[in-house]
């Protein structure tokens, strides 16, 4: 029976890491072979993941470059590539200067981040807050049912109980908030976490048994 090499490699490494998780040290506390193999495989995975980030950046650049050539929304793609090139250039410059111990800390890169990226993302999140408020205000007009009303009520309670002035004067609002947060919310969260855990275990077993091959084997 012909088994692809990638499948065999994936299954073998997965089994070693799993067994190394349980048998990484001996009774004396020394690292076992499985532990060593596991550490080796983990170090390699981290390195591969770092390279994958660079590959992703390159792919992104190629896609937008194709869009520029095909003249399909080429303005945004040009700005993106321009920003990429500038940031990459600045970062490389800062790395060289850091390793030369001339100006460590990557100041220029942090400047771009602090004054361009951080304000932009923060502003987008603030607009999201206004949008969510407007959507909550029109929710009852779009779909008037029990669940919608319940949702809107819970939102109002939580928002109102966030105000310390109101909670100090209306104590049961604080208890209500505590109950909402600790009982229904946590219960739902536990259920989600259990489902996620079981799905993770099933997926792991499928990969170890070769039933699922996300790596394309």
């Amino acid at each position, binding site marked *: 029976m012909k088994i692809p090499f990638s499948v065999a490699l994936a299954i073998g490494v997965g089994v070693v890491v799993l067994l190394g998780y349980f048998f990484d040290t001996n009774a004396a506390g020394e690292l076992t072979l499985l532990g060593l193999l596991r550490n080796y495989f983990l170090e390699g995975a981290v390195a591969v993941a770092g390279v994958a980030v660079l590959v992703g950046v390159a792919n992104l650049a190629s896609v937008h470059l194709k869009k520029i050539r095909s003249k399909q929304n080429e303005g945004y793609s040009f700005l993106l590539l321009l920003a990429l090139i500038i940031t990459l250039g600045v970062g490389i410059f800062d790395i060289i200067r850091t390793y030369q111990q001339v100006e460590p800390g990557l100041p220029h890169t942090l400047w771009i981040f602090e004054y361009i*990226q951080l304000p932009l993302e923060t502003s987008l999140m603030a607009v999201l807050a206004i949008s969510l408020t407007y959507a909550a205000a029109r929710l009852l007009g779009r779909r008037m049912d029990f669940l919608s009303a319940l949702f809107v009520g819970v939102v109002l309670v939580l928002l109102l109980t966030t105000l310390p002035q109101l909670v100090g004067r209306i104590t049961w609002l604080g208890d209500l908030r505590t109950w909402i947060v600790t009982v229904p919310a946590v219960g739902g969260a536990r259920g989600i976490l259990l489902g996620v855990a079981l799905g993770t275990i099933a997926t792991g077993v499928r990969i170890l048994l070769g039933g699922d091959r996300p790596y394309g084997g």
Partner: protein
Amino acid sequence: MAEIRCPMCSQLNPDHLEVCQYCQARLKPLVADSGQAQDDSGLPDWLRSLGDDLPLDEDEAAPLSNEDESQDWLDRLGSEQPEQPENAEPEPLAADEAGDVDWLQDFRALDDETLPEISSPEEPPDQAELPDAVPDWMAEAGLAPTDDDEDGVPDWLERFGETPVESEPAAPLHTSELPDWLSRMGAMEAESQDSVTAEPEDDDHPEWLAEIADQVSPQGADQGLPDWLSEIDGPAIAAADESQDFPEPEIDIPDWLGAEDSQEVEPETAEDANLPEWLAEMSGFSIPEEPAQDLPLEDVQLGEQESRAVPNWLRDMESVVEEDQQQDLGDAWEDYEPPPEPEGIGAAPFVVEDEFSDDLLDVNQLPDWIAEGTEPKDEAGEDALAQADLPSWVEAMRPVDPGAGAQVLGPLETAGPLSGLHSVLSAEPEVAQIKKPPVYSSKLHFTEAQQMRTEMLETLLEQEGRPRPVPRPALISSQGVLRWIVGAVMIILVGLVIATGSQVAPLPQVSTIPIEVSQASRIVQSLPAEARVLIAFDYEPGLSGEMQFAAAPVVNHLMLKAARLTLVSTSPTGPALAEHFIHTVQSQHNYQSGEQYINLGYIPGGVTGLLGFAEIPYRITPISFDGLDAWQAEPLDGIKTLSDFDLLIVITDNPNTGRAWVEQVQPAMPAVPLLAVISAQAEPLIRPYYMPQDAQVDGMVSGILGGAFYERATQVNLAPTYWDAFNIGLVLAVAAILIGGVMQLISLLLAGRAERQGTVA
């Protein structure tokens, strides 16, 4: 009008008919032309001479049944023959027949005048009138009457006239042994069942012939004999013996008509020994006692030897005929003109026409041995002959006629390859009928309705592949205006609060501080000085406003404790955020990289990276964010594994990231407390790790409110800068939701009332 009696069914038919109108039997037998030269009278010489010479014995004559039957058979023969002069000399015979008829000529040589008229049977001829002269041939043969003969007739000739003749059972004579002339006599058809004998109508055949018929084996009749002989033998044989197993017939045949093989036939008496040779050859022939059936005299051909003999039957016939009306045989013979012979048949000495239909010599009644040698009739002739009554066993052997009507035939097929057959499966008209196949046009014909539907389907299919144009929204719409209003209001009010730096909103009370916040503060408070704290900055830049306000009191508390911080992140922007947090939010503490804190940078691989960092942190992050050897720096002095840290703080807005840190890293540092500084949206998913008794999360600070609580717990006042704006924002949000909800409800109610009013109207 003259009538003819059918020889088969005995029904009277008009004489002009050829076949019987009842049974379709032939009334008038076919007469074949004879190639043989004959006299103008039609009779052979020997027969003619017999009529002149043979004496008539009154006693030997067989009684006739009626006057019609008493007609001289010879007269009948003579009436059919063309008239010739009385004294016309016979035509000279052929050379080969010259010798054959010598003996007949001897008869002819006798003076006709010397013969008396043939008297009636009741009047025996006067012996004195008989010519004294005896033919020379008879004298030579020793056949002349002797003195012992009382009546002057030789004994041998008397034996011819003996009827019935009690003959000893002679040796069985096969039909193949009979003379040809006797066999040919059997070919004559029976045209009438009328008998010249005195027997009843049902049995009007001569006795001697009947006896012969009884003694003849029926098998002989089936052995290739003509039908007329077979039919003659049928009734007689059936009456005699209905069994199919017939013994070998023993025919009493006079010696002079005996078998050709003279060895088979022994002379019966001593007188037979004196018979001439030609008579001896004919020995073994005996006339049966029972009368035989009428035998037609047609198609009787006399052979060479047979023409010399005078058989007993011939003598008997003469005696029978002369009973009623005696005619001048000589004249009758001379006047006799044989009928014309039918085609394909030889000279027939006896041609039986209508007058001879009831003749004694009915050929159909002849036994089998007589019928031997008779040529079979043609098929056409057989169909024209009358059918005699056959015995049952003969009838049983007759081939079954499918058209006899015994079976009911089914419908007749008239089409297809099976046409003409009955009871076949009727073919489909389309199959049986051979017709030209219809020509179908290759052009597709369809109606207008079909065409319309086709076009409709084609349009739908074309539209399916075409993207639908998105309707452009209106530049100014109510929804857009409302959105702008809400946004503007919120931005303006919050901005004013921030700009003015007001601190109107009170901080939460200490009694209302959650327990997880209190624990967190106690853990941090219990840290020793210059504790090694690992902090994970895993939040997004967009939520940095909330996260910085929530993490600031905690980090500030640590910095107040002179803790050595190790910063790490699993997000690509985490190291940058960490650097910003340390240099902006906690700038008052003036932490320096490599001295008070170390930024290990980004850990790729997500969960795998965290597991690797938990197992081999020095291999996963060997170099800091600013390029320094991290594990040789001051903050990480004495740190080999994560369990060497004093505290782990996870600052994240993503619950999965927080879960990953809890599940992957915390098991590697079980004795190290873990604090979670999380966003308000991640609190529900992280709280389960805090709730249990042996929780993996020892403290939790959730959002801006948690930060405010932590500041109240540590009595650090960092939150007021953002506290009033936070409170104003919450109030505006609540107000917007309430106002919007109320407005939507009112509009729905109004719309419902309008619909009800419209419906009623």
